[in-house]
Every structure is written in structure tokens, then in C-alpha cells.
């Protein structure tokens, strides 16, 4: 069955992720492996840009599963997350039945609440069987949805089923692989976290970040990539409103290599700082002495 293609150990998991260019910490590989083996949703929390969403994409590609993404936002409700009836088509069906002189109400009702009038949204799609095996369901930035939606997720996440009043209960034959991410703009209720394996994704250590930069920005020189990583790591020690994530590091490294920069200079850093820092206050603070200091730290040879 499908589980045959799943990695059989933490090391295999690590390899699988690495083969797709995702250089994960061992702890992340462990929880991912566990979530696959135990069939439990994986709840990833951490600062923006540390690779929480990425892991779902990588998993789906590596396992050859469909990726179903539900981007959360305030006001997300059942009709845009689970299913919706195609009312226009239903209306036409009713008119057609009328025109044909069909007046059996029971028959009409069961006809128009059939599968073909249902518009399936991500959560329902994720419960459907797929030839390639259960899909990867990414519930992205759950903290942006409101509490009511969170409560709705409880049933889906524990039983992998959805109840539709006109239709009945839809249950997944095999539970999907669920990855939930949150940036902590709001605390998620304990009840939901309890159903998941929880993991805090941290900024990577310098060596790992260097490896990530090298694999993601192929043309970059060894010297520049090292300076970039040192600079970013030093920046994270500063008291900024928003520290740069790995995604920003990659952006910046790409920008620098596009500009053909050989090494970091105050000029080139000043011009491209917007790729790293996203708040004007933070950028202002980086002028002058702070910039000099961090730059010196990053470019010193040792």
C-alpha cells in the first residue's frame, strides 16, 4: 500500500527531505516522520520565513502526493474551506424538472443535492481518495482564521470526516498528511494543538543556513555566501522588530548574486537591505554605526 513509499526511519526521512533540497534539522525530520507514521497532523509554529510552508511542498513532491493548500484568512468559512452548493446549476435543474412536469419532491430534493452539484473546497478534496495515495493537506497560517473556524477543524482533524446536512458524512478512507502552520499572530487553542504533534521551527544555525544558501543560490561564491550568512546571523542578535528569516536570507543572497557582488560593502548592503528588513524603523536603525559593526563582524576573516 501507500505506506510502503513512506520513509522507514528518521534518517530516511532526513534523506528524503535533503534529496528535494530541504535541509532540515534532525528534530524537524523526526517530528515529520512521526506524523507520517502515526497519522497525526503536524503543527508547526515559528517566525515567518523559517520554512514551515516549504516542508509541505517538499513532502508532497518527494512522496508524489497531491498538495492541497488551504490559505487561512479572517472570515474563512465552511463554504470556502469545505464545500459549497452550485446554486445556479441547482436552480436550472429545478426549472428543468418543472418543465418536464416532474413534481416528485423527494426525487427532486435527492437529485439536486447530489455530488455533481457540489463544489468541493480544499478540506473536502483532502478527504477524497487519490490514486497516488492520501494527499498532503497544508493548512497555512491558521492563526489568521478566526476561532470559529479553528473549532470546526477539530472534527476534521481527529476523525478525518465532514458532515454535510443534505448529503451525509464524508470520511476519508486514508487520512491525509496534514501540516498546519502558524506565525503566532494569535494563540491557537490547546484543544486543536492537542490533536497534533507540535514543533517549534527555529532559525537555522550558521552552518545549516550556509548549506541552504549554497543549495538554493547555486551561482554564489563561497566567500559571499559565508558573509551573507554571518551578516544575517548577526542581524538576528540585534533587537529588531522583525528579524530576517531564511526566506529573506535566500532572497538577499539571490539579489546580491544578481548584482554580481563579490563581497559585502556598505554601499551594496545599503542598496539591498530591503530584501532583508521589512520595517522602515528597522532599516533606519541599521544605518551608520550599527551597519558598520555588523558588517565588520560579517566580513572579518576567521
Amino acid at each position: 500500500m501507500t505506506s510502503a513509499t513512506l520513509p522507514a526511519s528518521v534518517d530516511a526521512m532526513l534523506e528524503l527531505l535533503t534529496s528535494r533540497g530541504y535541509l532540515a534539522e534532525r528534530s524537524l525530520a523526526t517530528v515529520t516522520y512521526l506524523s507520517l507514521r502515526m497519522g497525526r497532523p503536524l503543527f508547526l509554529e515559528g517566525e515567518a520565513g523559517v520554512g514551515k510552508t516549504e516542508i509541505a511542498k517538499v513532502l508532497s513532491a518527494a512522496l508524489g502526493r497531491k498538495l492541497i493548500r488551504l490559505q487561512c484568512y479572517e472570515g474563512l468559512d465552511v463554504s470556502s474551506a469545505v464545500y459549497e452548493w452550485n446554486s445556479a446549476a441547482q436552480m436550472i435543474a429545478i426549472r428543468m424538472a418543472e418543465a418536464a412536469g416532474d413534481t416528485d419532491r423527494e426525487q427532486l430534493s435527492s437529485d439536486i443535492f447530489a455530488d455533481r452539484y457540489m463544489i468541493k473546497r480544499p478540506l473536502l478534496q483532502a478527504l477524497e481518495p487519490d490514486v497516488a495515495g492520501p494527499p498532503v493537506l497544508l493548512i497555512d497560517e491558521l492563526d489568521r482564521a478566526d476561532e470559529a473556524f479553528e473549532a470546526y477543524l477539530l472534527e476534521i482533524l481527529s476523525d478525518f470526516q465532514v458532515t454535510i446536512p443534505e448529503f451525509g458524512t464524508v470520511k476519508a478512507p486514508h487520512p491525509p498528511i496534514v501540516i498546519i502552520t502558524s506565525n503566532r499572530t494569535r494563540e491557537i487553542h490547546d484543544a486543536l494543538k492537542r490533536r497534533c504533534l507540535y514543533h517549534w521551527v527555529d532559525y537555522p544555525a550558521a552552518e545549516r543556513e550556509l548549506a541552504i544558501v549554497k543549495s538554493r543560490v547555486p551561482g554564489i561564491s563561497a566567500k559571499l555566501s559565508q558573509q551573507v550568512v554571518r551578516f544575517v546571523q548577526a542581524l538576528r542578535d540585534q533587537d529588531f522588530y522583525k528579524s530576517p528569516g531564511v526566506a529573506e536570507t535566500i532572497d538577499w543572497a539571490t539579489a546580491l548574486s544578481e548584482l554580481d557582488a563579490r563581497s559585502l560593502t556598505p554601499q551594496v548592503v545599503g542598496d539591498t537591505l530591503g530584501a532583508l528588513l521589512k520595517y522602515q524603523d528597522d532599516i533606519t536603525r541599521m544605518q551608520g554605526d550599527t551597519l558598520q559593526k555588523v558588517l565588520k563582524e560579517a566580513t572579518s576573516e576567521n
Partner: protein
Amino acid sequence: MAINHLAPEKTEQFADNIVGFARALRSAGMPVGPGAVIDAMSALQVIDIGNRADVFTTLEAIFVKRHEHALIFKQAFNLFFRASEEWKHMLDSVPLPEEARKKPQAGARRVQEAMSQPRMTETPQHQEQDLRLSVSDKEILQKKDFAQMSAAEITEALRAIERMHLPQAELLTRRYLPDPRGLRLDLRRTLRASLRTGGDIIDIHRRGPIQKPAPIVALLDISGSMSEYTRLFLHFLHAIGDARKRVSVFLFGTRLTNVTRALRQRDPDEALASCSASVEDWAGGTRISASLHNFNKLWARRVLSQGAIVLLISDGLEREADSKLAFEMDRLHRSCRRLIWLNPLLRFGGFEAKAQGIKMMLPHVDEFRPVHNLSSIQELIATLSRPLPPHHRSLIRSAA
């Protein structure tokens, strides 16, 4: 040696160890349910338990559900899976945060107070008189400054606060609900109803947006100069937290403490006790600027994201008032829907914003109100229950 605990051939001992570890975590203040223990056992069966790091990550993913607990878990894990000694002794040496320590029992404070009150020995008639306040007494109580109240009056004021009913200040959400007067057509319901008449649409069903109380975030100054007010304000915040679900409370003096969870307890005394247990700098100095900085950096994005109203309760007497304070106030102001500054100093008729700190903060608030007696708190409640103005910076209701 550590892994001896997890010797697979001794399944019973293995289970015992997990149960014991879960108990250790629980007594360290982490919420660990029996479900998690079962999860942990099944998880450990699919990984290689010879690898200590993997065992750590596995158990962490199951037992830790909040990032804040990660540190406690780490220490507990290192202690528990170190040697097979009695874990309890070792646990005592863990530097746990105050809130993790055993909580005092509900009403302990009230019992204690009752025991030490001389009133207990007084005649019952006297007590009765105390409690039966006449109408005029009540009026006086409404206007009386909290700082000048006697113990009995404070008791009465607390009761009045508990009775305060907070009407819901509504915030339109983007979710919808069946509403006969709503503006949106509810096609699904309309269609279902039409089936009853064989497809003829007789009733049109509508939907309207759900209204929800706006979240409130309170930043309460607990420095020495505010000490006469803090307890009453905490009672007030506890009372409104009961009525509406989304109230976050932070205390600050020289440092910032999130006491939202502590205040959630039903019993006000227990809530206040666990609140004060989690604060280290009670009635000390004030560092408003540093505290606001911490709030802006660590919490603003998490608690202000849904159009929150911020209540800043402070006298604004800041020693290190400089441009940083203005900067942090500005940031706070820009990240919330409405910033209301409640200042007990406003009770003085001729109050002028002379102190440097107050001058710095004043330009960045939407409203500046007194809170020193019951009637001003009631006015505050009335303000909170009015429909929110659209997201614009209204005029400052200056004290001068």
C-alpha cells in the same frame, strides 16, 4: 544510562517511565493529559529509542504544545532521563517559573482575610449596618477615590465591579449568519426552502455578518505609585474577562508579564493570587518605555491582530522619559484600533500634563480618561460598549 529507562524488553518499566515522566511534567506546571501519554508510547514504538535526541524530539512534539513550555520540558527531560533516582528530589532543583509552582487554593486569600479581620468578632448587627448602604452612601461610593477607600468600601466597590455588566462593543466580522434583515442572499437556504414547495421560491433567506466583541488588551502599570489602584483594576479586568472571551492582560513595572491565563480562573481571588504569583516586580519602579518595547516586539502582533482596543492603565510617571518612549507609544498606537489611556492622576481637577513622560505619551493616544472611582469605571464601560469609530485617529480628549 539514560536510556535504561526505555529498555524495550521491559515494556512495563517503559510504560511506567513515560507515566512517571508525564507526572513530573504535570507537577512542573505543564498541562499533560492521559491522551498524550498514550501518544507518547505509540510514538516511541516507531522510532529508534537508542537515539537520545530523537527520543527528546518525539516526546517534545507530544508533550509540549506551547513554545513557552519548551524550556521546562528540556530541563525536565534532562533530569528525568539522567539517572534512575527519585525524580521528585531533582525536580525541586529545576528553576521553574513562578506560575508553575503550586497554586494557592481558591479563596485562600479571602479566608485568610476573614480570619485576620477584626470584624469577625464584632456583633452581627454592626456587620449588617456595614453592608446595608443607603442610597446616598452609594452615591458617595461612586465618586470616592479608590485610594481613599476604607477596607469595607473597597469590598463594596469590588462587589459593584463584579456586578458590572459589559454590553458587547460590536465588531463586524467577515463571517456570515442567517439573518432575516441581512443584506446578502442566502442561496443555499432559499433553495432548500423552495424544495418544500416543489421548486417555487416563496421565502428569500438572507445572511448578515456576525458581530463579535472587539478584543481588549489591557496594559496595567503595577509600579509603586499605582499600588492603591492595581488590585481594583485587576478585579475589573477579571470581571470584563468573564463577560467577553477575548481579553488579554499584561502587567508591567520594570518588566512585562502576561497574566491573561492566570486571570482566566473563575474565582476572582484565585485569579488574582496566581496573577501576583507570576509577577516579580510588584509595586516596584516603572520602566514604561522598556515594557512597551517588549510588548511591541513580543506580543503586539499576537494579540492586536484582530482590531483590538488597548487600555493602557498607568499614571505615566516615567523616569527615563526620552524619545524612545514616544517611539514605542507611536508604534503601539499604530498597531491597534483604539488606544485608551486611563490615568488615575486625572482625578485632580487642575491636572496638567507636566511630567515629561506624560507629555511624551499624550500625542499618541485616542482617548485620555480618568479611572479612580466607580463612576469613572462605569463611564469607561459605556465607552467600550459604544460602536467603535472607523479606523481613524480621533481627537484626544485632553484633560486640560
